[in-house]
């Protein structure tokens, strides 16, 4: 162990987490839980941008990057939706209300919401991809007068994996908002859309020979499409949008990547000359095209 002098460093240490208390825990699906945590006064983000993430730390276990589903400035709480996939997330799932989580952040660039003002938003989510998009949805409802219409297209593998069921019921009731869900394959008792979410995009937007996006007129450029999901999914959507000659500065994608430090130092999320944790995880389609091909 190294000796430790008493003089603290004058620079803030970005590797050391602060602790936030869990105020609410809820089960979304069999493997997904949501946690609402309250930020201590000194750690309220100056300017939270939807799409950003925090590094959640459990001392003794490890650290994982998790997107923020919602930041509520009225009570300084963050909402995280976490899927149980590995060692750390499994441990997080055992936590109760009143327990603490270590946090570092917010990191990442987030969606450029100021560029979406006055435009219609189309959010396309594959599975757990709806989690970061929810922060966009919440921001939309807080400032609805600044934006056009909102369309949410959500694809889940099966009906068991649909998250935010209660919230979606609320969203459908809001004005200027539509919400469509699809599952991959037919299921007993399901009478909604079936098929990949990219087909939902096609069916709604690409197949019709009339105006493709009913509130889009390509010359006016007043729609923005945000896509979060596995690469296979967004690649397929981008291919179709490309055929439609949809402008590539109006489509945004969130890239998932293996991250460790969250601050652009450890090199794990390095992608060409960009660090997904700093220059991303949100990239516009024209930026995505310049990123190295391995991604």
């Amino acid at each position, binding site marked *: *162990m*190294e*000796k*430790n*002098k008493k*003089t*603290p*460093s004058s*620079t*803030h*240490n*970005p*590797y*050391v*987490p602060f*602790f936030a*208390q869990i105020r609410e825990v809820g089960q979304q699906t069999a493997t997904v839980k949501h946690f609402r945590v309250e930020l201590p006064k000194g750690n309220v983000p100056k300017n939270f941008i939807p799409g950003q993430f925090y590094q959640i730390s*459990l*001392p*003794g*276990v*490890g*650290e994982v990057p998790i997107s923020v589903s919602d930041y509520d400035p009225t009570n300084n709480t963050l909402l995280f939706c976490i899927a149980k*996939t*590995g060692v750390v997330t499994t441990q997080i799932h055992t*936590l109760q209300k*009143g*327990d*603490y*989580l*270590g946090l570092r952040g917010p990191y990442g660039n987030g969606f450029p919401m100021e560029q979406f003002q006055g435009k219609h938003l189309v959010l396309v989510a594959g599975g757990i991809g709806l989690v970061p998009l929810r922060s966009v949805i919440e921001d939309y409802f807080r400032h609805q007068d600044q934006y056009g219409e909102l369309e949410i297209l959500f694809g889940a593998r099966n009906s068991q994996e649909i998250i935010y069921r209660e919230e979606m019921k609320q969203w459908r009731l809001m004005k200027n908002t539509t919400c469509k869900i699809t599952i991959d394959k037919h299921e007993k008792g399901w009478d909604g859309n079936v098929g990949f979410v990219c087909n939902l995009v096609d069916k709604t937007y690409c197949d019709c020979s009339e105006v493709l996006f009913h509130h889009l007129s390509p010359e006016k450029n007043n729609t923005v499409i945000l896509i979060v999901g*596995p*690469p296979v999914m967004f690649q397929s959507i981008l291919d179709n949008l490309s055929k439609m000659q949809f402008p590539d500065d109006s489509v945004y994608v969130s890239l*998932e*990547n*293996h991250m*460790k*430090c969250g*601050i*652009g*130092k*450890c*090199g*794990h999320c*390095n*992608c*060409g*000359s960009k660090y997904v944790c*700093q220059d991303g995880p949100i990239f516009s389609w024209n930026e995505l095209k310049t990123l*190295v*091909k*391995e*991604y």
Partner: protein
Amino acid sequence: MRKRLKINNLHAFLQEIQKQGSLIAPVKTNTEEREFMPVEKISQVALEGSNPLRSPKEYLFPQMETMYQYHIQKEGKATIKETLHQEPQIIIGIRPCDLHALSYAKEFYSTTHKDVYILERWKHTTLIGWACQTPLNTCFCTSLGDSPVDSKCADIMMAKTDQFYILEVLTAKGKDLVETVGSLLEDSPDADDDIIPTIRRQTEAMIREKVDLLSIKGRIDSAYSSSIWKKYSDTCIACGACTFNCPTCTCFDTADQLETCQDGCRYRTWDTCQNYAFTLHASGHNPRGTREDRLRQRVMHKYHYSVEQLGLFSCTGCGRCTRSCPVNIDMVSIIKDIKEVVSHGEE
């Protein structure tokens, strides 16, 4: 300010500066190789000769470093104690290729979110450079536009002639150190002005080859899709020995370790982009799953991505990658092929 130190006063000089902090210098080890190590016996210090295989980066960025210790209380909240290293140290005998590497690393760790651990060590470290007179056939610093006598971020720059050493003092830290050994040093007259340029000319003439990378700086991305990478990756065994000895490789991995059920630490260790698991996603997808991808990543990062990020090559031509490689891959061959592809288009 420039000073002279007589040849036979070197040991006395080292003994004096050792009082100011932990002295790290190239020392002769049991296996006859020289390595940067904390000096125990002054007589073991061997400043002259070729650059040691292991770079001095580990004294600013250790292979394994505890970042903080924690004591877990009830409900999972933990009290955290940072473990910053603030002991003074002096590193001597650093060749300009390593000085260049250290200044790149400092710049890298100072962007946006500053890496406090390294910057804190840096604050308490005095760097004494050494003008290089014995390059190996694997050295290629001149290809990157550097010279074997650049003082870069050194606090003091040393050079040797037959009768004496000269010490060029470059920073306040260097001046403070030199003042503690005042009596051993003499002033250096104007006649000494030519020493370092002469060493530069002589050493540069000994460097095997110069590949002009400066003329293609910023354009190397056009080599991304070429067949160069497969040519070398067929041979490469992705061991990562090159990255461990490379003075500009800065990647690391973090992990937690519990000593008891309540006390533990978060530590970091060097990690290598040549490892399969480096970019392995939780979903099982791996964007750099083949050795070709990983070799390309390493070389492109050194010669292009770091140029896009910081405007600097992150290779300094020290040649340690070539020296460490168990299958004899020569970095100079790779950059020659890159130059060929970029200058003339794909073959």
